[in-house]
């Protein structure tokens, strides 16, 4: 459609050099086609070597038992072990809690902020936008350590609570509050990131649509639920899928804020895989089997989201 044909331009010439042009056109296209493959080949090789081949390697390893060089085919042993492993259950449970609670809170919050900031008449709009986006410039390790410090049991947050006469919250020693802390932290870091997507999507919406709706008597809530959300649907879907994939792979925050504790109360699948390989006696085969839970979950959840989100797109 685009590059490898010379439609409009070639017309006039065609009549002048009827026979020879056909040949040159053909060789030119062949030449372009060859360059096309050369240009994409390095990337294709690199992605194959560093993603697809390791992926197959992980699949093969997930059927192996035994340590290191003694690894041998073990059939479904690793996969059967998954069902009796309590840490896997804990990690899956935690991940789903993060997913079900954190992702919707963040997306709704980001949407509301975006609607408010999309108003030309709003004073201090640039300041609010920069302030809310600012957490995105921190590295995951950096912000995790800041959060760990602010929310430690005798940290600044609890000191502020004490100041207004409230009892301290055991952020890092109570499994419930530890999960709340992880959710607060992720929301802090990523809401502004999602906001940027929505704001850029809203710029594509014609203001006249809203004006027409206002004339018809639609209020702010109606405009939000009946117009903004449907119009932004593809972007909301995109951010939901990326957030889901991100949450399923959660590692940096949990590793640095709570180390997965207390009593595996915040542990995630990625972290358990890391521990299986580099903290406990290495068991690569079993770790790969655990990793395939994530692969399967990502595929299933993305498919569900695309089905739900894409249903009335036509």
């Amino acid at each position, binding site marked *: 459609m685009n590059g490898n044909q010379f439609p409009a331009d070639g017309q006039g010439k065609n009549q002048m050099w009827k026979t020879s042009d056909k040949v040159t056109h053909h060789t030119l296209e062949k030449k372009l086609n060859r360059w096309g*493959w050369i240009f994409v080949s390095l990337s294709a090789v690199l992605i194959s070597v560093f993603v697809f081949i390791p992926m197959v390697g992980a699949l093969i390893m997930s059927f192996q038992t035994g340590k290191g060089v003694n690894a041998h085919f073990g059939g479904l042993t690793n996969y059967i072990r998954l069902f009796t492993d309590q840490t896997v259950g804990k990690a899956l449970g935690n991940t789903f809690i993060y997913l079900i609670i954190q992702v919707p809170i963040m997306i709704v919050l980001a949407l509301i902020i975006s609607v408010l900031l999309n108003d030309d008449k709003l004073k201090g709009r640039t300041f609010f936008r920069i302030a809310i986006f600012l957490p995105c410039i921190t590295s995951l390790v950096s912000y995790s350590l800041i959060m760990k410090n602010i929310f430690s049991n005798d940290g600044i947050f609890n000191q502020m609570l004490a100041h207004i006469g409230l009892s301290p919250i055991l952020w890092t020693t109570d499994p419930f509050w530890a999960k709340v802390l992880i959710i607060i932290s992720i929301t802090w870091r990523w809401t502004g990131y999602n906001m940027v997507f929505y704001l850029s999507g809203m710029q594509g919406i014609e203001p006249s649509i809203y004006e027409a709706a206002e004339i018809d008597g639609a209020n702010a809530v109606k405009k939000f639920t009946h117009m903004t959300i449907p119009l932004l649907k*593809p972007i909301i879907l995109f951010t939901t899928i990326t957030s889901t994939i991100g949450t399923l792979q959660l590692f940096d925050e949990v590793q640095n804020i709570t180390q997965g504790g207390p009593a595996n109360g915040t542990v995630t699948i990625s972290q358990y895989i890391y521990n299986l390989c580099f903290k406990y006696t290495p068991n690569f085969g079993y770790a790969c089997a655990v990793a395939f839970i994530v692969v399967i979950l990502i595929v299933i959840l993305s498919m569900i989201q695309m089905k739900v989100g894409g249903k009335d797109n036509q």
Partner: protein
Amino acid sequence: MKRNKTLSVLKYIFLAVLSAVSIFPFFWMIISATNTAAEVNAGKLTFGAHLAENLSSLFHSDLHFGASVGNSMIIALITTVLALLISSVAGYGFEIFRSKARDRVFNILLLSMMIPFCALMIPLYRMFGAAGKAGLTGIGLNTLFSVIMPSICTAFLIFFFRQNAKSFPKDILEAARIDGLNEPRIFIHMYVPVMKSSYAAAAIVTFMSSWNNYLWPLVALQDPQKRTVPLILSAMGSSYTPDYGMIMAGIVIATLPTGILFFMMQKQFVAGMIGSVK
């Protein structure tokens, strides 16, 4: 009318609270970097005079923080240059010379974005480990090579450059081809200069994700001298009695490059982040 006014006030209060919540951790980080560990623990909310002291203990700690800044910088810069080169060539190749077969290859490459890194980490670790054991010491674990290679080619960046190549004026290409320029020359002399802002945006995201990368360097770099900034900060944070004055000073240093990039090139910064959903 009155209802509208209260609503408007509520709106400002809501945004102000959110902004305060967003900014407070930065404020806390900067304040704490100038205070002693004891003052941080006591919740001191004003600037202190211990920044130099914190920086000095940071650079003199036995965790080689100074070396880690150099390591991170070298890794992030090499990764950015290679990633931009390789991905932009591919993005150009996929968009400018489209064919059915190449579209199919593109879709397969896009699938790689769905594969979680935790599934690749173990085979990659063994792959680089095997290379090191086979005597290829320059490309085994604990080398720059092992940290850089897995991140120099991402489907995200190829997708980004392909999207941007769509806006490249096609008649310029055709004119150049008729003039007999070969494709690599067209790419270098025409495409790259026109696409400068796309390169800037892609450079920012790539630099930032490399500079901040944690899990893979944690696995690949076991040698304390070779570690990157996030690894050192994480190690400091998980010690038995963390010195938060020093750690916050370290976090300030870790945040500076991305912070400067953001405030200097806001437009490209945001364009790079949202590049894939145009």
